[in-house]
């Protein structure tokens, strides 16, 4: 994860951001210049709901070096309470204790570590609530 990218994506990753279109009133994720539904430019940044439920989850044991420090971990498809779906890790838990449909809430965790000398990437994950 390169420095400019970490900086550019920080608010979206730390806060969980989407947009609200003032024309068609759709909420979408992530932040874009145009509404993906109606192409309007009249979009406003919004904070996504901080709670949601698990639609699917599975374990990841092998991924890029930058994310191996936390492996094996659980990756989930989460439907937030505002209807928006995101991909995020479900942390501080074991697969055996999770079920589709369970409630989760958003937390702030380390996503990546670029070796011992590189940058640390942070972002949103979920924990059972």
């Amino acid at each position: 994860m390169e420095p400019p990218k970490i900086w550019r994506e920080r608010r979206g990753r730390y806060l969980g951001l989407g947009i609200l279109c003032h024309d068609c009133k759709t909420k979408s994720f992530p932040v874009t210049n145009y509404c993906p539904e109606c192409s309007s430019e009249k979009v406003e940044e919004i904070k996504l709901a901080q709670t949601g439920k698990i639609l699917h989850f599975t374990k990841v044991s092998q991924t890029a070096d930058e994310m191996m420090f936390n492996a094996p971990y659980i990756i989930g498809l989460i439907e937030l309470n505002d209807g928006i779906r995101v991909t995020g890790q479900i942390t501080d838990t074991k697969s055996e204790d999770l079920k589709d449909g369970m409630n989760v809430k958003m937390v702030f965790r380390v996503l990546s570590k670029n070796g011992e000398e590189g940058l640390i990437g942070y972002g949103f994950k979920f924990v059972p609530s």
Partner: protein
Amino acid sequence: MSNNETFIVGYGITKFGEQYSTNPSSSASTAITSAIHNAKISKDLIQGLYFGSLLSNTNLQPFVGAEAARECNLNVPISKVDAGNASGAAAFHQAFMAVKSGLLDCIVVLGTEKTSDYVNSSKIEQILGGTIDYLWEFEQGATLTSLYAWMTQAHMNEHNTTLEQLASVPVKNHRNGVNNPIAQYRREISLERFLKAKRISDPIGRFDPATHCDGSAAVIIVSDKFVKQHSEVEQKAKIVGSAQASDKLALHHRTTLSSLMATKVASKNAYSMAKIAPEDISIAEVHDSYPIGEILAIEDLGFFPKGEGGKATIEGKTQINSDISVNTSGGLKARGDPFGATGIAQIIEIVQQINGEADKRQVDDIKFGLAQNVMGTGASSLVNIFSNMEDDK
């Protein structure tokens, strides 16, 4: 659309597997040269090279199409086509359009890949991360395998597909691969082996995914005009349908995980171009990077109703010479998956089958054959349909 018919007149394919002593351009030039010899044409007739390769122009390999062209003494326009894992079929589709339009009359299409230099699987996962939403899926922690695990779960939840049904896909494909001389794996593997294996991303087991490897494959596409000018050149198959369709990149933006919209749309358009229906297809090479890949394919291509792909497979309806022969080559699973080469390898299997050259894998009475190649989790799907030209004679 123009009435210009297009044909395949030659093909060449290397063995697939881990080939540490073969460099990328040697593999590619071998496939190209084989195709030219197979077509029995002079290389001077070739007017263009289209190639697909996921890894070309990464640090470990050169812009392989250019280097391979130099080694084959081909001085032609070269286009690299990138559609991730579907780069081979995508290059084919672009070349098809160039020939169909009448702008070019003879094109070599190459699919080539060398993955074995990347000994660290972390690097391969990162490369495959480029075929999904790198920013909001991969960097959030998802991998291609974990997303296919979700798709498998969705299919199991919605259609009661079972682990046995899923495992029957690689069982069949390994059995078929025994009779494929260029396949990476040529031995059968039992259902128990697949079912007992550790889950790497539940419900996907350790032996379920196709293995990435090295290999190259090439075909030569020519126009009607070429065929009329060179009547001694044998037409090996007619391209009757070719289509590409796209879908949202990230699974969190899709409306369903148990069907690939891109395959449905691409196949509909390809059938329409060919003026045929799914029932007319006797043989199909589909993208079984994971077992669910084949089950989704045979449903979304219209061979079986949605939700019945697992049942059809375990009941043997996709074996050689049954209702429809699927992945007679062994599929990605047994043949191996050199990402960019796979799409062309699939097409070559169809061409060989149409020409009765498939030996112990041979399917009888083929009128139409189909090849389906998928990028990542289905952001792009390519469907190419070929005929045996009997109706034309």
